[in-house]
């Protein structure tokens, strides 16, 4: 029963990831650029902690 619950949870996560991927794929060009800037913002602290340069694009390109 526990194994079934884990499998069900995994399937739910995989399905959610697939939905998210389809959503991102369907975005317009402008929305994709804004999503990219969001990704830069999220990843920049990790990159900097590794000593790599990570410049986040200007705020004007981010979602309002």
């Amino acid at each position, binding site marked *: 029963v526990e194994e079934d619950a884990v499998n069900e949870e995994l399937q739910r996560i995989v399905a959610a990831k697939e939905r998210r991927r389809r959503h991102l794929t369907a*975005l317009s060009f402008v929305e*994709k*650029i804004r999503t990219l800037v969001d990704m*830069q913002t999220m990843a920049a602290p990790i990159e900097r902690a590794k000593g790599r340069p990570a*410049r986040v694009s*200007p705020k004007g390109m981010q979602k309002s």
Partner: protein
Amino acid sequence: MEPILTYHLDIFVQLPLGPGGLTTLAPVYEYLRSRGYADEQECIVIEGVPVQILPAYNPLIEEALAEARETLFEQTPTRILRAEHLLAIMLETGRDKDRQRLAAFVSEATFDKRYLTEILERHGLTTRWQQWRKTQ
């Protein structure tokens, strides 16, 4: 296809040949530096965005530029390479990261297979494409 994390913008440019038949980006960089934009590794930072300026170095890139699609970014007109040309360029450059992106691109992006086939034939990339497909 879904957005992929990157920190810089690649811009292909077509420049006239200089003395000796060579293309040089030096005047472009000199102009940008005179406007106060600073170098950062292989890029120049324009209004907060690291930009890599690349000359159109072969007929494939020249064709990609000629066939680029005008796309508005908010109110700013931009020219974006067609998916089929991006695929051909990734195949031609063949770096590990290009091959990975190529796989993602082929599975996710919407592109015109017939047009891609024509591009591959025109630029002698058909065999390389077939070899790459066998590895997938």
